[in-house]
């Protein structure tokens, strides 16, 4: 009853099953080997789970009295927010200049473009940890180092995004204004910037959210802010305090997300109204 048309191997069930089974087996073997190499036994997760239960027991109920008992907690929240705020804004400002040098249509010279692009790419590949450690050595422990670290990190993030946005600008207005005899800077000010402004503003808000989380993380390393407080609480085994800090982190991030959304929408509504 079977046909002259042979079933291609790609879809023959027995063949494809064998292929799939082999791939799955290989993947599982690699996974097991890696876990063995790192001496991480997945069964430990279940065996030691009571530690997690213990920890949770020690962490609850959270010591929210920390908020008013320890004077430095609320200011540390402000510190973290400020770190993210400055890092984002400063990074955006510097990145804007660099992006103009890195974009095909606004770069003064291909050599400049190439070197700026390489610099930005190198920065993006450098782990935040390295940047932070270098800065800690340079300006000492504290929120300032973390802020600068976020700033440098943001430059890398923004640089590429802004350069892409600039390159995608509609050439029409640019040519028109240039034809009117405007200088390079004026062309940028009046033709390029207005077109890229919306996407830049959107990116800035997004980066602020990212940097806020990063600020908390960097705080753990001595960067100050709520992350630092959290780590301190953990290292002295005051787990109830630690959970309180954790809750504050989540509340702060959620609130800042809403605040950011609010301002972003206001900004764009203003734009739309004035269009």
């Amino acid at each position: 009853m079977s046909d002259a048309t042979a079933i291609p191997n790609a879809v023959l069930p027995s063949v494809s099953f064998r292929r799939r089974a082999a791939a799955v087996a290989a993947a599982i073997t690699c996974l097991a080997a890696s876990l063995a190499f790192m001496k991480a036994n997945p069964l430990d997760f279940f065996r030691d789970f009571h530690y997690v239960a213990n920890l949770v027991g020690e962490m609850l109920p959270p010591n929210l009295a920390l908020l008013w008992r320890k004077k430095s907690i609320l200011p540390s929240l402000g510190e973290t927010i400020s770190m993210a705020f400055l890092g984002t804004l400063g990074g955006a400002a510097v990145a804007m200049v660099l992006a103009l040098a890195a974009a095909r249509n606004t770069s003064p010279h291909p050599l400049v473009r190439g070197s700026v692009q390489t610099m930005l790419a190198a920065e993006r590949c450098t782990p935040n940890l390295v940047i932070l450690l270098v800065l800690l050595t340079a300006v000492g422990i504290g929120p300032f180092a973390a802020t600068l670290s976020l700033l440098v990190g943001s430059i890398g993030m923004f640089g590429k995004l802004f350069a892409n946005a600039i390159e995608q600008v509609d050439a029409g207005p640019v040519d028109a204004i240039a034809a009117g005899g405007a200088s390079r800077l004026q062309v940028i000010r009046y033709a390029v910037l207005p077109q890229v402004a919306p996407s830049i503003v959107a990116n800035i808000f997004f980066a602020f959210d990212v940097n806020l989380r990063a600020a908390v993380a960097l705080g753990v390393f001595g960067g100050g802010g709520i992350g630092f407080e959290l780590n301190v609480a953990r290292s002295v085994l005051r787990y109830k305090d630690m959970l309180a800090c954790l809750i504050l982190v989540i509340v702060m991030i959620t609130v800042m997300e809403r605040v950011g959304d609010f301002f972003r929408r206001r900004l764009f509504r203003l734009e739309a109204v004035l269009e």
Partner: protein
Amino acid sequence: MTWADFRLERYGRIVKPGAVLLLLTVLALWRVDANVADLASGITKGVSIFRLFLPPAWSAFPSMIQPALVTVLLALTATPIGAACALAFGLAAARNVAPPWLRASARTAMAFERGLPEIVILLILVAAFGLGPFAGIIALVIGSVGMLGKLVGDAIEEIDPGTVDSVACVGATHAQMIRFVVLPEILPALLANMMFRFEVNIRASVLLGAVGAGGIGYELTLAMNQLEYGKATVAAFVSFVLVFVSERASNLIRSRVLAGDRLA
């Protein structure tokens, strides 16, 4: 509209937000103890610092290979495990698969997790399981689920309901519909996002290493604490290479997956 009106609008659009921004900036600078003197001294120190960090102590390079491997393996194992868990969470978070209460809880849990930096998750896990890669893997898995789970859930929700109806009409069970409709339709997106998450996990792995997960991050902070700056430079270089290679690999695989998918 007169020129006066235009200026007024411009005032509202640019000057007012600008002033607010300036105020906030000053406040923030005060909050972080920004110190121009510190920065200036730091910059001058920075030159001498570069002399500190260079030349890199290449002799220490061989001892960095094993930690580098640990860092890579941390991300390499955590990402697929995280993707598998994200599949489960994604199914729970999809409107067309899960009942509303399950969807709400799954999405809230994931949003909650996305609010926590991986470091914080690791700190908790270290307090429970102790230092080492084990806690690191779990932290990265949890982090991956937060991001990938949402993406998978969104992808599942976008599956054409007609296709689902059609397979339901042949009498397939829910499990079969997941295997033959949901999985094939979201697989390309899942793979692409998984590769992106791998990149993120490599960076996170370096960072987590410093907090006790082991690997190159640990070596880096150790060297800094011991003031062996040359060694620290080598560690930094190695981590840089790891991130760079992971980015290249991820881009390659992602473009392959998306190209293959475009034929479908």
